[in-house]
């Protein structure tokens, strides 16, 4: 064994963990190499010196702090955990739903005019309804219950013609 090989073997030798054959080789080298012999002796002394660096024990409330943090840790994931979306996804979904509700509330603006018109008298009602493009085919639409308040079919004709 040479000095370079000692790099891989000296620590295990000093720890008493080298195999019998390795130990014999190291001892043979130490017997003939003063530098490595000196190094081995000083490593032993160094380990004694390093023991002079103490480390303080954990503080008295260490366990309690750890267990408090553990208690705050989220519970293990249950079967329904997959149903819980991320906060960001939940916010996005809520925003979409609210927007949908708001948009749908805007749509029935014209029908509401019809409802208002219903209370303002027969002729005015009809004029309002007449203006709606959806009433182009009046004969068909007149069958709907919603339009049942309209005058009988001859009446509109007589009322409308003078205006034209």
């Amino acid at each position, binding site marked *: 064994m040479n000095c370079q090989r000692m790099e891989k073997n000296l*620590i295990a030798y000093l720890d008493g963990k080298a195999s019998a054959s390795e130990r014999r080789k190291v001892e043979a080298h130490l017997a003939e190499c003063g530098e490595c012999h000196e190094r081995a002796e000083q490593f032993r002394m*160094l380990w004694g010196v390093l023991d002079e660096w*103490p480390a303080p024990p954990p503080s008295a409330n260490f366990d309690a702090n750890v267990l408090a943090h553990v208690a705050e840790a989220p519970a293990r994931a249950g079967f329904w955990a997959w149903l819980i979306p991320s906060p960001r996804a939940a916010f996005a979904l809520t925003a979409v739903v609210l927007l949908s509700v708001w948009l749908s509330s805007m749509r029935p603006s014209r029908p509401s005019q019809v409802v208002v018109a219903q209370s303002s008298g027969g002729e005015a009602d009809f004029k309002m309804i007449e203006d709606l493009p959806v009433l182009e085919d009046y004969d068909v639409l007149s069958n709907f219950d919603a339009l049942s308040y309209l005058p009988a079919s001859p009446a509109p004709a007589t009322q409308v013609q003078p205006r034209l």
Partner: protein
Amino acid sequence: MVRSDVQLMLDVKAGEEVSFELLLHRYRTPLVHFLYRMVRDQASAEDLAQEVFLRVYRAREQYEPSAKFTTWMFRIATNLALNAKRDGRHRQLEVSIGQPGETAGETNTGHAPSVEVADAQPGIESELIARDRTAMIRLAIEALPEKQRAAVLLHKYQEMGYDEIAKVLQCSESALKSLLFRAYETLRTELAPLVETGRAPAARAKSGEVRTS
């Protein structure tokens, strides 16, 4: 009958909280000691040790007994400590030799040092010498490259086996032995004044810490 670490961890995985407390009790001291020497600050060491235990607990569902428990735990601790050092979050202010709390046998719990203004006390000289020696050791170890430092702490102070240290540091056993050799060679040079006047040679004297193997 004393349950093994693996059995305790499997019990934690099965929902038995008491087993976690047993693991905590078993490893809090070696873990805090290791982290204290890694980050050189008691408060930061305890914060990091708490984080290690918390991560162990959170990862209980994924725990597989393929690796030794202490290997897994010290790998988490090493990575956290190295990251903390790199981030500088746990770096103390510049510390001069003779920092309070570094005296041999004194515990640093973050309180004011109890050895201030003690000129009249007998033995203060030897205490100052001991403090200087401790500070020199600390500074020499701290000056090592981070992997060498972790290797020395796990080998010298935690008394781990080569195979386990190699797994913690994710290197081969052969590489670890070279790493340790180079680290101790540097320390031998840096601490030559202490080694030359060394006390009784001690073949890896026991430091009184809990063995992790």
